[in-house]
């Protein structure tokens, strides 16, 4: 496979889907380059599965086109598209054994002598000795591997994965994440992966598109999304963020100075996605693990040039590798702080006066016109709901 080969590109141009008056996917432009591992991340109902199904041909778009490489496949039925899907909870044929499940696609395309290929494929997913079993005789993890094998054996230009690990328990999920990543690297096929699990998306994908209410909120490498979210939704949905309402005091060169709760905060202007007219509102964000916590008595020892917020510890939970603090301050209530369990300061108990401080380079600024709570997970997203 050469670098100029683009037959595995997936190009969505202005693709949209409406059901009656409900818009599942707003017109969307997206290019997934050949050979990449691409994740569509979002809560259930955000349109990610609909987008995937439009690529697969299982759903006809209301508008826009789907291209695979240079080929327009928008109107092609699924059985004519060089695309295969690993379905949510697998959809293995219960009346066929593992071998026949894997051979299904080859047989449909009239390929003779499938035995060698199927055996090789089953070996790749380490299920060689289970060839003659029925799907219900296998464990969840094994069924998942059959589903992957059944799709991959057809050498699709793009492999679509719809919540492929949703039905597995946590430990197995971690293991399969690495396994899928390994397979993707080995076969070099474009993977498009739909998930509501942000850790899963970040672990596996090269590029993640965060979707919300039928739109892509932000697209980028996992680390970029995490470090520099552009919307409150992304900031809250990907991990946890402390968002503080602040007012622009002065903007000069590459630094913006903001006022919040009586103190001043510095924000690199390159990390601010909001208008910065003096007196305007900005949401200042910082991740809980970027913050250091110092007892008020030692405030003098904090190096200069760091953003500071004073407050009082409201709650502390010790979880082994770290301690998670909740701090109330004039700048904002219920700020989250994660402190690595290196040297525990025994004075840091609920009620203690503390100073939160962090490197200004870890601060990001968001448009204050947004819902500050967007993307905050209230309940575990339900699995099995078609998104």
């Amino acid at each position, binding site marked *: 496979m050469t670098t100029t080969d683009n037959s595995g590109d997936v190009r969505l141009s202005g693709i949209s889907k409406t059901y009656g008056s409900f818009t599942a996917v707003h017109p969307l432009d997206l290019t997934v380059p050949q050979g990449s591992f691409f994740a569509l991340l979002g809560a259930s109902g955000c349109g990610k599965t609909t987008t995937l199904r439009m690529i*697969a*041909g*299982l759903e006809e778009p209301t508008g826009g086109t789907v291209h695979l490489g240079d080929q327009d496949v928008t109107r092609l*039925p*699924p*059985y*004519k598209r060089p*695309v*295969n*899907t690993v*379905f*949510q*909870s697998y*959809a*293995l*044929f*219960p*009346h066929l054994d593992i071998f026949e499940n894997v051979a*299904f*696609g080859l047989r*449909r*395309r009239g390929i003779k002598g499938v035995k060698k290929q199927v055996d090789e494929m089953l070996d790749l997913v380490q299920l060689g000795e289970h060839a003659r079993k029925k799907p219900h005789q296998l464990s969840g993890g094994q069924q998942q591997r059959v589903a992957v094998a*059944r*799709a991959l054996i*057809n050498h699709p230009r793009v492999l679509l994965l719809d919540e492929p690990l949703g039905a597995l328990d946590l430990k197995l999920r971690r293991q399969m994440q690495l396994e899928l990543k390994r397979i993707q690297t080995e076969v070099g096929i474009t993977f498009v992966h739909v998930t509501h699990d942000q850790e899963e998306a970040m672990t596996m994908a090269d590029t993640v598109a965060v979707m919300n209410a039928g739109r892509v909120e932000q697209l980028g490498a996992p680390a970029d999304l995490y470090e520099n979210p552009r919307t409150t939704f992304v900031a809250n949905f990907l991990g946890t963020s402390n968002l503080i309402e602040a007012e622009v005091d002065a903007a000069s060169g590459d630094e913006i100075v903001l006022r919040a709760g009586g103190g001043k905060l510095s924000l690199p202007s390159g990390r601010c996605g909001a208008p910065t007219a003096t007196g305007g509102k900005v949401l200042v964000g910082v991740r809980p693990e970027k913050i250091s916590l110092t007892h008020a008595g030692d405030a003098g020892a904090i190096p200069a040039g760091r953003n500071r917020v004073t407050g009082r510890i409201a709650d502390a939970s010790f979880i082994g590798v770290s301690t998670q603090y909740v701090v109330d301050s004039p700048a904002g209530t219920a700020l989250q702080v994660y402190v690595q369990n290196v040297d525990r300061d025994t004075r840091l108990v609920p009620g203690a006066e503390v100073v939160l401080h962090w490197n200004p380079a870890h601060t990001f600024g968001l448009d204050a016109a947004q819902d500050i709570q967007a993307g905050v997970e209230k309940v575990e997203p339900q699995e099995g709901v078609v998104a």
Partner: protein
Amino acid sequence: MAAVTEAPPPLAPPAPEKKPPRRRGRWMPYLLLLPGLLWLIVFFALPMVYQASTSVQTGSLEEGYEVTWHFATYWDALSEYWPQFLRSVLYAGAATVLCLLLGYPLAYLIAFRAGRWKHLIMILVIAPFFTSFLIRTLAWKTILADGGPVVGALNALHVLDVTSWLGMTSGDRVLATPLAVVCGLTYNFLPFMILPLYTSLERIDGRLHEAAGDLYARPFTTFRKVTFPLSMPGVVSGTLLTFIPAAGDYVNADLLGSTDTRMIGNVIQSQFLRILDYPTAAALSFILMFAILIMVTLYIRRSGTEDLV
């Protein structure tokens, strides 16, 4: 009836059938079973014994009957009435095939394509049960009347030429021919085909169809390789529920047929209720029962090993 039109219960997650929990009070299950089972033993099983005994009795109504182990009755009955037996199997078989051909599309329609009309269609399939089937069967006399529009259309389409070549009709008539009887049987037992088919189709996970399409199966191939095999339990129980009652039926042959279309049910009925030759009637009834049990067993075994796996 509302419950009938509901989706059938999903496959039970744990199978309590295999290991019901042990409960205190060991007499409890027997107490629950006793009245119903007693009823079945006295009024279903015991009558079979009586019938078996009657079939080997000789005598007459006036002098009374006596068990003489006269097995010749079976031989006599079979040699005299084999055409009616054969006819029963042929008519019931034809009706079963027709029911499957007619019933499958409708069951498929209800299960996958009817959308919000699903419940209404389901009700329309079941509701005719409440109009006595005899009245509905009599209506076929009107529908298939000589010179009527249906017969006219069949004639114009040369369907009657084909059926009369098959010996199902003669001339321009449909009424009082085997075709009318098969048509009536098909009509009467069609819901018994549709309901189990629908139940098993409904249980098929819709994503399996999508998966097949995704794996290069065209719609018809998807049907042949995925949908139909997965609906086999419904096909098997539907064909049984159609064939068994059709083979023993005498109402359609009586109302829509002629003396040339008499089925074994008609013979049993007239032996029992008119001629009052009880041993012959009992023997015929036993032969019918065994014939059906053997056919059903073979059929289940065949479909069990070849199609269900």
